[in-house]
Every structure is written in C-alpha cells, then in structure tokens.
C-alpha cells in the first residue's frame, strides 16, 4: 500500500512534528547550563531572530488586523504563563506524573475544535487520534 503525501497540510504537520521534536529535546541539554528563566529569555530571542528573515521577506510591512493581533498576543501570553506554571509544578511534584498530565493538552485543543469549530471526526480519524494520545501518555511516562 502506497500512502500519498499529496496534501500540503500533512507535509506542514510532519514538518511541525520534526521541528517541535527538536524544540522539545534541546532544553534537556540547555537546562544543564541555563536556568529556566534564562532558557525562556534566550528562546524568545531565538524566536525573534527566526522571524526577522520573515519580516524582511514581507518588506517590513505587517497586516494590522486588530482581532488577529489581539488573539496572537493572548496566545503568546498564555504560552508564557503555561511554561512558568509547568516549571513551578515540576519544582513541587513528581516529574513523570506532571509530564503525563500536561502532555494531554491535545484533548483540550480537540474539545475546543469540536465545540467552537464544529469539527467532527470519522472512525479512522478517531482511532488515529486515540492512538496518538495513548502514544503521548506512554512516552511521557
């Protein structure tokens, strides 16, 4: 059976998987040298450096849709609070349990997609998503 990778969303998703894999792995090494605060700061600097070529590509002209900008600001703020809450939890409790618990975040994302975007899954998609969540729990343990 040949599986065709002819859909751009799948290629983008696989690319995300690879880059986020590296992003989640590198802190294991970086935290041996840097404090969590330091890593958070340099991660933000790295993020800005990566977006500079994009800004150059856009000729420095950014879309100014207010709703989009506000949601993006909220997303960044939530990310920072989530990272800090995660570090705080790690300082207080068992790593394995906390990693497993927080790794279940796709459940929230999928629930929100179901409620607000009315996205439905067929049986095959439901099975794939269940297997993916089970894999995350196994890996986190």
């Amino acid at each position, binding site marked *: 059976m040949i599986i065709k990778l002819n859909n751009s969303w799948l290629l983008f998703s696989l690319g995300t998987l690879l880059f986020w894999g590296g992003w989640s792995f590198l802190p294991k090494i970086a935290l041996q040298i840097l*404090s969590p605060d330091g890593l958070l700061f340099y991660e933000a600097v790295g993020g800005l450096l990566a977006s500079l070529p994009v800004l150059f590509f856009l000729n420095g002209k950014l879309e100014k849709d207010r709703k989009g900008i506000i949601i993006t600001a909220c997303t960044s703020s939530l990310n920072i609070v*989530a990272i800090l809450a995660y570090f705080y939890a790690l300082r207080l409790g068992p790593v394995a349990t906390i990693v497993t618990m927080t790794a279940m975040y796709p459940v929230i994302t999928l629930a929100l997609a179901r409620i607000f975007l009315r996205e439905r899954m067929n049986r095959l998609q439901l099975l794939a998503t269940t297997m993916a969540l089970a894999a995350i729990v196994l890996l986190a343990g």
Partner: protein
Amino acid sequence: MVIAAWSPPAMLALLLWGVSTFLPKVAVRTLSPFHMVVYSSGFFLCGATAVVVSRGFHVSFDPKGVLLGISVGILGTIGQTLYLFAIRHAKMTGVTAVSALYPVVATVLAFFILDEGLTWRQTAGIILGICALVLTTMANDHKTKQ
C-alpha cells in the same frame, strides 16, 4: 480530599497549552501565518523579558547555553510557522493528531544523542505514534478519494 501542591499549576499548564494551541486557528483566519509568526515572536520576547526582569534577571551568558537557548527558539518558531500553515488549510483534528506526536522525535533524539535507554513504555509509545501517523495519513487519503 487533599490536592497536591503541584496539581493546580500542572492543571493550569495543561489548560493553557490546550487553549494556546487552539487560538491560532481563529487568528489565522484574519492574519496570514508569516505575519502571525512575526507578531507572536515580538509578544513572546516582550513577555519573557518582563518575566525575567521581574524575577531579578538571573540569566547566564555562557556561550554554549546562549547558543542552545537561541536554537530552541529558532526550532520552535519554524515549527510554529509550519503549524500555522497546516491549520490554515486543514481541520485541527488531523493537524493536532500529527503535530502532538513530537515527543516521539524527542525520545528518538534522546536515544541517539544522549544515549538514554528506551523503556518498554517508550518503545510502545513510539510504535503507537508511528501507527497513529500512518492512520492519520490513511484517513486523509480516504477522505480525499471520496
């Protein structure tokens, strides 16, 4: 019932990561992914700087650490850009199922680079994760043919 001290912050992280993975789907309707990435990086740097400064700016300037930290940010941003392009043209269910499997890559990298042994749970997780990826692809392929 006694709630462990670590439980509220862990639950908060779970909830916030879930929401922050969902919200871009709404924003990407009005802002293109490239523009969102630039804004997001700016906001993240402002927020991170505010947090670090408010906690006394205890940041090491070790060159290796700086390089690693910046690399983390670059990888995360490229991943975020690809994620935004993916959710712009597809349902969140498929994109989330694939992209959330990034711990598979991290576990494999830790095995090869850090010589961390694989437990049976992790091995089962990797196999299950690969099966989930193949199944997601098949589900999409099936849908395309219909």
